[in-house]
């Protein structure tokens, strides 16, 4: 996997604006952003109501994912280009999700919605309909998703990267500073985890740092990039962004995203927690 195969820029998107095999998909935390304006031709994915099971805390299953993509007009052989707000957090989460269900060609728009807006590129409120497809998903991959038992067993054994802000890592906050403080029962971090905030992988405009800068970031923080790595955050979306940097951009096979993240771990009974920097 190379950077060119997983990350596209605005010029690439504009050059493929009339390509019926390229589907732009906007994924936001603020789902009203799409209505106010989106890249022409883009379809919307709601990370919460469409990608999460409505009852239990988990993904939609294979059948639900197939139905969702079929309804959205996304075919198995389409090139899916994901983008969104929050520096592509939720787009990266959806990327990981598409990877988990085995989509062939999925990419991120570098810089996401922010860079597109800051460059004053075209946005439209017009919705372009796409005819329904019959999408077939693969069995969910287990090599890129970590569950709680594996995370507890990884303490002191594998590399744990906590990508939240220093305030969340140290236990001063439970959520990012622009969101209400809610969710887990306890604050702090998983013992032995290194705090390497997701933001250090990105430039101010939301684009990813270069491979050389990313490698330097992790190695200088003491991460053995040949080891097995598990990334986590609060709900799994910022850690999907770091998973993308490590697994897709740097091509490290042994990297998993723990999507249960702190909202699960910080509510488990009896597990060890560390506080402080």
């Amino acid at each position, binding site marked *: 996997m190379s950077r060119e195969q997983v990350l596209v820029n605005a010029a690439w998107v504009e050059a493929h604006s009339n390509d019926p095999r390229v589907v732009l998909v906007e994924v936001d935390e*603020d789902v009203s*952003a799409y209505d106010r304006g989106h890249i022409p031709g883009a379809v919307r994915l709601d990370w919460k109501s469409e990608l999460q099971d409505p009852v239990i805390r988990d993904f939609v299953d294979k059948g639900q994912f197939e139905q969702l993509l079929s309804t959205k007009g996304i075919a198995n052989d389409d090139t899916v280009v994901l983008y969104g*707000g*929050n*520096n592509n957090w939720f787009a990266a989460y959806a990327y990981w999700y598409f990877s988990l269900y085995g989509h062939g060609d999925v990419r991120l728009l570098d810089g996401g919605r*922010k860079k597109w*807006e*800051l*460059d*004053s590129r075209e946005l439209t409120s017009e919705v372009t309909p796409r005819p329904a497809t019959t999408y077939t998903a693969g069995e969910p991959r287990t090599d890129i998703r970590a569950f709680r038992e594996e995370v507890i067993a990884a303490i002191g054994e594998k590399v744990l990267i906590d990508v939240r*802000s*220093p*305030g969340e890592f140290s*236990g*001063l*906050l*439970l959520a*990012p*500073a*622009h*969101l*209400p*403080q809610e969710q887990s029962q306890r*604050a702090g971090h998983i013992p032995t985890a290194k705090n390497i*905030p997701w*933001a*250090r992988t990105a430039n*101010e*405009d939301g684009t990813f740092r270069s491979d050389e800068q990313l490698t330097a970031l992790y190695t200088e923080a003491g991460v053995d990039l040949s080891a097995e790595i598990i990334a986590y955050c609060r709900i799994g979306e910022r850690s999907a962004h770091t998973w993308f940097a490590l697994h897709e951009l740097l091509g490290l096979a042994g990297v998993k995203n723990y999507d249960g993240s702190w909202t699960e771990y910080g509510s488990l009974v009896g597990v060890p927690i560390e506080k402080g920097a």
Partner: protein
Amino acid sequence: MARETVIQGVVVREGEPVSTGYARLLDEGGDFTAEVPLSATGQFRFFARPGQWTVRALVPGASGERRVVARQGEPVDAQVEVTA
């Protein structure tokens, strides 16, 4: 758990609110902490622990920043001027 306080304000360019852009909250060490899109009237709002912060604004073709001190129970109102 530190109780959060509020840092809010408006981003202006040549005295007028900017409706497209982003406000970033950076901690004392300059590390990114949060980011929000500006409202249609150029406003932003963060929940943050008391302390020294920098609000950095990015808008098409311009940017700017302002240092603020947030104290418990005293919401901060800040105007951030952006220039090309």
